[in-house]
């Protein structure tokens, strides 16, 4: 079987980094900068992201030339898991730090790097992912939004939708058709552009979701000019680029730690400690989360070594999302020592919110139906 999650030991530098993040989080909590929430990576908070930038927690692995600190992926891993476990609102810079910045570093022009990366590192410039369209969800290769050649650049037309923070972000890395669709070569003729979302011709509309939040949005492109310097990689290589980006998108701890703050709040609400059911449910969550965490560290190390863990990332995301759906459902049944206590109310509110929110985890970043197909290919079944 080709799927391998090598055991990895975190380096001493990662432990130092963990201390720094914890101390930062203690200060931020003491200052009232945030209230712990589930899915902190989807909560957009400009001020908190700027604080993260100032503290040096964004773009850690990038070269110093562009504002980074040239640290290892494992040090970055520790930073993001601590931020998520604390329920911190890191959604504004999350996508830029996780995948858009790295994508620009690997495939962008120096002009693009200079224009975008230092702002990301400061926690002041935010990114969005332009993949889905009204008629292209899981079938990403069917995108119809297009770029047409013009003098010194490209003219973009079309529509992207379900774009997380699309109405708030500054730059979108989007997949566009730059040649007419060819049913025989579905993955050909696609190109990735980094688009300034403040350009003329862009209309953005936030979409309210069933959790009552405006997280995602619809973006319309009407003759938007994008300079040649903002093409990623080679024209026509978009499919290769976008699938490379997905390993970063799918393999992080946000794919299993989104509901961790709910477990913390559950402990605060004092579940009946002598109940075997309470013990077993809490312990099962610990065991499953710990296993997923080792998988995530292993994938981070593989990315660090220049490997391509696309299938491992798909596997980890599917398993992690399933657990995130399961945990709130299973916690529902757990009795509290004092159900009417002051600690019980925030727990119950968070539980109700998380059950709704968790519905979205398997809809974004690749559905189980798509991911399991990738795993099956990894097993040699297709």
């Amino acid at each position: 079987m080709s799927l391998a999650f090598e055991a990895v030991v975190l380096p001493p530098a990662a432990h130092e980094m963990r201390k720094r993040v914890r101390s930062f989080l203690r200060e931020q909590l003491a200052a009232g900068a945030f209230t712990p929430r589930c899915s902190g990576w989807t909560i957009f908070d400009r001020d908190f992201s700027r604080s993260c930038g100032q503290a040096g927690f964004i773009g850690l692995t990038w070269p110093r030339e562009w504002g980074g600190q040239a640290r290892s992926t494992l040090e970055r891993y520790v930073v993001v898991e601590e931020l998520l476990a604390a329920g911190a609102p890191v959604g504004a810079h999350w996508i830029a730090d996780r995948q858009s910045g790295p994508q620009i570093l690997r495939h962008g022009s120096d002009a693009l790097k200079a224009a975008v990366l230092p702002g990301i590192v400061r926690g002041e410039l935010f990114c969005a992912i332009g993949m889905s369209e009204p008629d292209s969800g899981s079938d990403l290769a069917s995108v119809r939004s297009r770029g047409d050649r013009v003098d010194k650049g490209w003219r973009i037309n079309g529509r992207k939708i379900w774009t997380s923070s699309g109405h708030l972000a500054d730059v979108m890395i989007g997949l566009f058709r730059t040649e007419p669709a060819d049913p025989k070569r579905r993955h050909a003729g696609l190109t990735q552009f980094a688009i300034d979302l403040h350009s003329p011709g862009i209309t953005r509309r936030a979409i309210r979701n069933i959790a009552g939040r405006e997280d995602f949005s619809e973006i319309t492109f009407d003759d938007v000019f994008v300079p040649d310097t903002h093409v990623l990689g080679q024209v026509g290589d978009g499919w290769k680029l976008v699938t490379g980006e997905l390993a970063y998108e799918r393999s992080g701890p946000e794919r299993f730690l989104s509901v961790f703050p709910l477990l913390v709040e559950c402990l605060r609400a004092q579940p009946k400690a002598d109940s075997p059911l309470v013990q077993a449910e809490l312990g099962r969550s610990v065991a499953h989360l710990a296993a997923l965490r080792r998988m995530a560290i292993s994938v981070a190390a593989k990315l660090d070594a220049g490997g391509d863990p696309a299938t491992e990332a798909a596997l980890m995301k599917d398993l992690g999302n399933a657990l995130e759906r399961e945990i709130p459902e299973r916690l529902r049944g757990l009795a509290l020592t004092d159900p009417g206590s002051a600690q019980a109310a925030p727990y119950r509110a968070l539980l109700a919110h998380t059950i709704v929110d968790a519905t979205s985890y398997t809809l974004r970043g690749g559905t189980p139906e798509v991911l399991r197909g990738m795993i099956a290919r990894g097993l040699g079944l297709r």
Partner: protein
Amino acid sequence: MIGDAVAKMLAQAEASAPSQGSGAATDVRRFDLALWRTLVESGVPRLLRPESEGGAGNAFRDASEVLQAIGMHAPAVPLTDTVVAHLLLSRASIDLSDERPIRLRVTGPDGTPDAGAPAAVAQGQSGPDLAHLLEVDPWGDEVVMTWYPLAEASSSAAASSSGRSLRSAEVPLVQGLLALAAASVLTGAMMRAMAMAIEWAGTRVQFGRPIGQFQAVQHSLALAAEELAASRAALDWAAQEMEAGRPMPAAAIAKARAADAAGKVAAITHQVHGAIGFTAEFALYRSTQQLWLWRDRWGDEHHWNAWLGRQALAVGPDGLFDLIMGESTLR
């Protein structure tokens, strides 16, 4: 390294063993003395003893690989019991002058008797295949053991009626070792069952194509692969932690995770095989019988989940993430 070597020995033994399609519960197999001698020559049973006692010392990663190979090939030798028992005896300063296998009988956390590895192996037989016996109760404040060595000369006598009483304060080490060993066997058995199911799905043709081309079958196997991958990741980490002198909570996590996965992997691999997998002449049951045995043996997932849950309740909200990281200093 030694894991690969042992896997090769076991694969050879498996290939040369006469087909014994006696089926699940009645699968009585005679002790494979030739294989045992080969393993003894390579020093495998003593693997976890210190080098001065013919072992490799603190070799939990090697031991885990060896026991995964056991799970994969299900040989007719009580190697898992013996490897574990050698470390327990070594910690009690007991060595053996012979290389007979050692049976372990570990009382369950709730007092249930040890279901044991295939019970018929070596029982009531005489000669060099008769085993020593070590009884263990590791669930209290200290580990209580009774050691029943065979008399040196009279191998036909069953274990002497009065055993030697041993006590150990190394509760986390002993519990961790048992959990790690069981998780290793489970993981090896899952790897084998998966390999068989993938191969079967690629060759069995229905509706004009291999069943592995149907999305429903692919997704089932993908789910089983996820369970196996999570079990392996937890196990590799636990073996590393054991070597670092931190048996808990990693070993408990590894057993809880693998035992949780075992039932699902058994169900999916049998489903993919259809009726043939439910027959005594097809080898799938060798793997799945081990999954059903070892998920229960030496503490099932309910026990370890509850144990981990008590740790979580003890460390409280501020210590929960440290527990998941394995940083807890609690037992």
